[in-house]
């Protein structure tokens, strides 16, 4: 049943366009009200498609308790939580991706979305790794918008250095502070964290050298993509699929999110086509031939992880069941430098096989384990273990796969 207020997509988008403009004007006057949240969108991935081609939103969201009410016939919903508090507006983008638009207070809505994604096996976030951001920067922003201003945030936290007892739980409070924050910040603890706001062509002069000199500059945590309609402001894409609107135009930001989500979907499908471990069968006259298809994902560390860091990673992640990767399994230690884990990815409760050494991690995903797991692994390993990690999908660099998909060179097999 249509809810009062918005009877159509048109009405909602007009409202959000006005809302975005008002907030941007407040930002420009340095008067962004604490009680008025910026528009945020969250890109959510559902479990791999079952072949039906249609997403069953009610079934997918039932574990969250979210109440959805159709706004129009074109797949747009108002979303409230179990207690009736408004969350935002949900827009299915494909059979695999949902976008939640919200104007609620950032800290609350961030925690709500993260919490439900964590607790729901059929939901995950869109995970944008440093290589993904860098390709967007290099191919979309640098040649097309050289005179615009962008903002980049880099962050690497050496979570697994030191003793096993020191890997504390991280909070993303820094993101909450971004909303009213306009300056630069350099923060050092056991981490490298830096934000740059500068003209695109100027950043291009030093960023590659910075990345060579200091690998944490590869761990991009946020990229603000300039607005293409207003000439000012932009949309901040965070590693975990949150987008904050800091421009005048909701529709423009939404278009950018849709483009990037479609790119992400194509890359994810290309990963799954390449790596899924699966049985193949060829029928013969009186029998059949069975084969096994797939390819490993290999994450290379150069220089190798030092032994205490490697062992701390294995112990924290598996033996203690802690840390940001949320992987489950019993390490089979083949030596002090090698462990095999036939485990489970607790985001989705799907199987994952890992062969870990300080030089490289080899990962096998059985068919059905979402390719999103690869994006999440790369993002988090870059952020917490080695910002310079090089990832291969089969024999192909992950970054090259993203580039080729972006340029339309990736062929469907």
């Amino acid at each position: 049943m249509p809810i009062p207020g918005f009877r159509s997509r048109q009405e909602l988008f007009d409202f959000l366009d006005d809302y975005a403009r008002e907030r941007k004007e407040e930002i420009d006057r340095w008067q962004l009200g604490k009680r008025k949240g910026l528009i945020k969108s969250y890109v959510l991935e559902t479990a791999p498609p079952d072949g039906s081609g249609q997403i069953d939103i009610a079934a997918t969201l039932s574990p969250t308790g979210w109440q959805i009410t159709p706004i129009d016939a074109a797949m747009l919903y108002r979303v409230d939580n179990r207690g009736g508090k408004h969350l935002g507006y949900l827009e299915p983008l494909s059979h695999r991706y949902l976008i939640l638009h919200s104007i609620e207070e950032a800290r609350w809505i961030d925690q709500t979305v993260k919490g439900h994604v964590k607790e729901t096996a059929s939901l995950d976030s869109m995970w944008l790794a440093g290589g993904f951001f860098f390709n967007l920067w290099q191919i979309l922003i640098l040649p097309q918008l050289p005179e615009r201003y962008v903002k980049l945030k880099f962050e690497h936290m050496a979570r697994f250095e030191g003793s096993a007892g020191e890997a504390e739980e991280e909070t993303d409070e820094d993101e909450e502070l971004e909303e009213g924050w306009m300056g630069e910040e350099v923060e050092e603890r056991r981490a490298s964290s830096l934000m740059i706001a500068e003209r695109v062509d100027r950043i291009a002069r030093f960023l590659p050298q910075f990345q060579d000199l200091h690998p944490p500059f590869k761990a991009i945590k946020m990229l603000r993509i300039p607005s293409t309609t207003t000439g000012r402001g932009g949309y901040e894409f965070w590693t975990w699929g949150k987008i904050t609107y800091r421009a005048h135009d909701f529709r423009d930001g939404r278009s950018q999110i849709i483009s990037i989500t479609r790119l992400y979907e194509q890359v994810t499908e290309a990963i799954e086509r390449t790596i899924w471990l699966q049985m193949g069968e060829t029928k013969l006259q009186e029998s059949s031939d069975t084969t096994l298809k797939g390819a490993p994902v290999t994450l290379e560390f150069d220089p190798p992880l030092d032994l205490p860091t490697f062992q701390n990673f294995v112990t924290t992640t598996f033996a203690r069941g802690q840390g940001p990767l949320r992987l489950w399994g019993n390490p089979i230690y083949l030596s002090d430098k090698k462990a095999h884990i036939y485990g489970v990815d607790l985001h989705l409760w799907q199987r994952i096989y890992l062969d870990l050494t300080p030089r490289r991690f080899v990962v096998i995903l059985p068919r059905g384990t979402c390719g999103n797991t690869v994006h999440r692994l790369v993002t988090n390993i870059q952020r917490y273990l080695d910002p310079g990690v090089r990832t291969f999908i089969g024999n192909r660099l992950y970054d090259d796969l993203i580039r080729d998909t972006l340029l339309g060179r990736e062929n469907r097999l």
Partner: protein
Amino acid sequence: MNETLFAPTPLFQLNLMLFLSWPAPPSFVEPIFWREGFELRSIAPSIGVPLEALARAQTANLPIQPTASPELVLEQNSQQQLLLIECKSSSFGPASSTSQQSRALLACTGPYLAERIGIVEAMAWKGYLLYVVGGGQESPMQDTLQALGQELQAARISAANGGAMGIHIRADGVYLSPDARSNIPVQALRQSPANGVQVMTLEQGEDPRPLYLIPFDPSIGVDDPAERRVLEERVRQALTSLIGSRLDMPSLEVAMDEILTAVTEVWNLWENSRATIGFRNAVRAYVRDVLRQLRNLGAHIESHEHHFAFAQVTPNIARDLRRYLDSAAFRRGEIDLWSEAVQLDFSSLSEGW
């Protein structure tokens, strides 16, 4: 370079050969088969030996098996070649019982195999039988293959070419060393340096084993403690994932075959094998123990002959069950797949799970 103490098992060899036929970066493995266009065609196919070969072998008093089942068959379309791979820890002589299988494999020529697969212009295809053996065994294995080839030739049986290569585990890596007489149709092996082709780099003291894509082969058995452990963890992993991923629905089912297929993707190859009955029983006994724990947590579970079904799964029950599956107690709990008590346990047949 010193050889390490790790002795390649057939399961290690089989899994290494699989990885050599998949794309990968050199930091993990040098996929020599994949680089030359070889693709995995089949695992453990059952191939009937040509009837005329069986007849001529019988006439010549040559022991030969009526069916051949190589561990892997690779196919290279560009050169129209089929590569049959057989993995053994050590070599054997022409008089051994194992040579009956070798004669059967050699009697399956390229055109015969191509015809069986249904390839057009099968006559143009070549076949090659490659024995992968432990390091140092390649020369005696090559002697055996040559002797068997001569026997077949004398009996007027057409035979494929065959050769042997050894897997040498050294401190700095894993090397494939073909016998000098082998002429294996893989360029990287034909141009092998004197100490072999390095396919995997190892740090000092690093174990060479890759992940086991195939953790189980009933024709080989599982004696190695580490390989047993892999199988145990695969069973635990399969059950955890199949139940844990479905608990968001108010009701769910898990079938025994789903568990076994998650334990090894190619379970269908062996599901009718007598050698797997004990394994199936043992997995069923373990699942029954886990279900008992889950029932104690409030789960409503009905057991049927080939599957079990959860009903009335509320968010609270789902949370409690997941918490249990994620707990150290469950993760570290003992799994017995090997004792006679569980392998011969048929009690579940009468009472369900």
